[in-house]
């Protein structure tokens, strides 16, 4: 029997299926929008510079004979071990370049939604606060894992390839885990940090100032307090110092500060808890205007 259908509005007869990862579209869109911003691709590419420089040093370290004249006896600098990995990964430049990428990709993640009153649109869909925050965090996670975990794990592989044996891995089997652990630390902390500041204002420009301002202010404050009181514990006020301390602990290396690493982890965790509290308060579908 032929079926005659009317040309008109038809209601979909299928059944709605609950998505397993309702936050995934938010994450995908966030990443896509970041790449659309002018100048972002350049900044993103430049953020790979430290890993590229490290790759070159890895190569030179395995070909010292060929580069004898270039290196001129400074072979100690090319002793590639977990400390070397730690030095690069926790360096100020890497952290700065990560911040710069996040400023482009993540500063407006929540600020823009607040500015355009988009939260109502999100929560009119079958997603909850948790999915929203997870989606936004995933954008940060994507970039940090791509810039830190991926290239640096690959660098371990390159080290093995250039060496032609597994000696390095057998000597330091925990190194890939350290890299992953540090990447996760950066992901969670920087994600919380950036989203906290993004939720604090509707003005993305102001959020950018806050992201760098708070970061560098903490260093300035720590320096001032250290000079005033002479105590190494004052360094805990510095976010970059805490990240470097935690990174050194994760790599099992000598700590840069003469204090237990536990305190740095505690400070970083505290900031994450603060971020969770602020996000829980700020992310709601209805805005109350007094």
């Amino acid at each position, binding site marked *: 029997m032929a079926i005659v259908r009317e040309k008109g509005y038809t209601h979909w007869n299928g059944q709605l299926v609950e998505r397993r990862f309702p936050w995934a579209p938010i994450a995908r869109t966030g990443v896509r929008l970041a790449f659309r911003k*002018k*100048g972002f691709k350049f900044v993103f590419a430049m953020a790979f510079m430290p890993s590229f420089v490290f790759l070159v040093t890895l190569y030179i370290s395995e070909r010292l004979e060929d580069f004898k004249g270039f290196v001129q006896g400074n072979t100690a600098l090319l002793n590639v071990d977990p400390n070397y990995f730690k030095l690069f990964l926790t360096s100020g430049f890497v952290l700065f370049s990560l911040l*710069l990428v996040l*400023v*482009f990709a993540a500063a407006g993640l929540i600020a823009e939604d607040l500015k355009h009153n988009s939260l109502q649109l999100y929560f009119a869909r079958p997603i909850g606060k948790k999915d929203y925050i997870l989606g936004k965090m995933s954008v940060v996670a994507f970039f940090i894992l791509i810039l830190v975990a991926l290239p640096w794990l690959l660098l371990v592989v390159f080290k093995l390839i250039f060496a032609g044996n597994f000696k390095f891995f057998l000597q330091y089997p925990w190194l890939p885990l350290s890299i992953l652990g540090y990447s996760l630390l950066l992901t969670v902390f920087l994600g919380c940090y950036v989203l906290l500041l993004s939720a604090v*204002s509707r*003005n*993305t*420009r*102001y959020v*950018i*100032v806050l992201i*760098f*301002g708070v970061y*560098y*202010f903490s260093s*300035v*404050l720590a*320096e*001032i*307090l250290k*000079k*005033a*009181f002479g105590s190494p514990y004052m360094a805990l006020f510095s976010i970059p110092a805490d990240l470097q301390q935690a990174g050194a602990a994760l790599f099992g290396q000598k700590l840069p500060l003469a204090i237990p690493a536990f305190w740095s982890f505690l400070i970083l965790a505290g900031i994450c808890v603060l971020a969770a509290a602020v996000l829980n308060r700020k992310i709601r579908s209805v805005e109350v205007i007094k």
Partner: protein
Amino acid sequence: MTVAKAVRQVFGFFAFLGRKAGKVRVFAVLGLMPVALAVVVRIVLHGRSGPMAAVFTEILMVFFLQFYIVILALFYGTSITAEEVENRTLSYLITRPLPKAAIVLGKFAAYVLLMFGMVVVSLALSYFIMNAARLSDPELYLTFLRYLGVLGLGIVAYTAFFTLLGTFLKRAIIVGLVFGFGWENVIQYFPGSTQKFSIVHYLKSLLPYHPASISGGRGVALLLFRLEPTKPLAAVLMLAAVSAALLALACWLFRTKEYLYED
């Protein structure tokens, strides 16, 4: 309306609006950090005026000169144009009988006054708390005025630079951050006349600092590391001239450029 009158009207409008904005509270609280530190240091170093003077000069001025005024000027300077374009309120201003230069200059003046107010309160409280034991010394007040003058000039110069950036760049804040926290910090390590290509060099040249008399010649102060100072009068003239030139360029750009809202 004459340009001067228009500048006055724009100044009044944005001085009022700027005071009301929530961000003022955040920046003002940031400015209370050195005050809190001054209180703590005063308690710890009670009675030792020499070390306290050194703490102020070597430490707190680092905060003011290399962080606080830079961050304030960066935000407010770039806001002069960028804020109006982002918020799409530029239409309200350029469809009034106001010369476009007056909009830039009026907003500049309003924001400089706002920033100066925040800096004065913070500096005065922290300075006089740190030097509470020497309040009868007239030299103290002259030194305070000198510090204030340096920071005031710094606010004007940095804000003028960031105003220019905001007038012609879309991502002015990022370029501003690289300049304010990158270039201005790194330049002090460059030899010879390279230092003169920074605003902070001229500000540091004006600081009332005598390393031998305060710290006994021990160590090197954070602020004046590798400084080859310019003569004070030349430094003031240079800062004034650079600020005027940057503002003039910003006004000209604002007048000739058209700003399209992102849809």
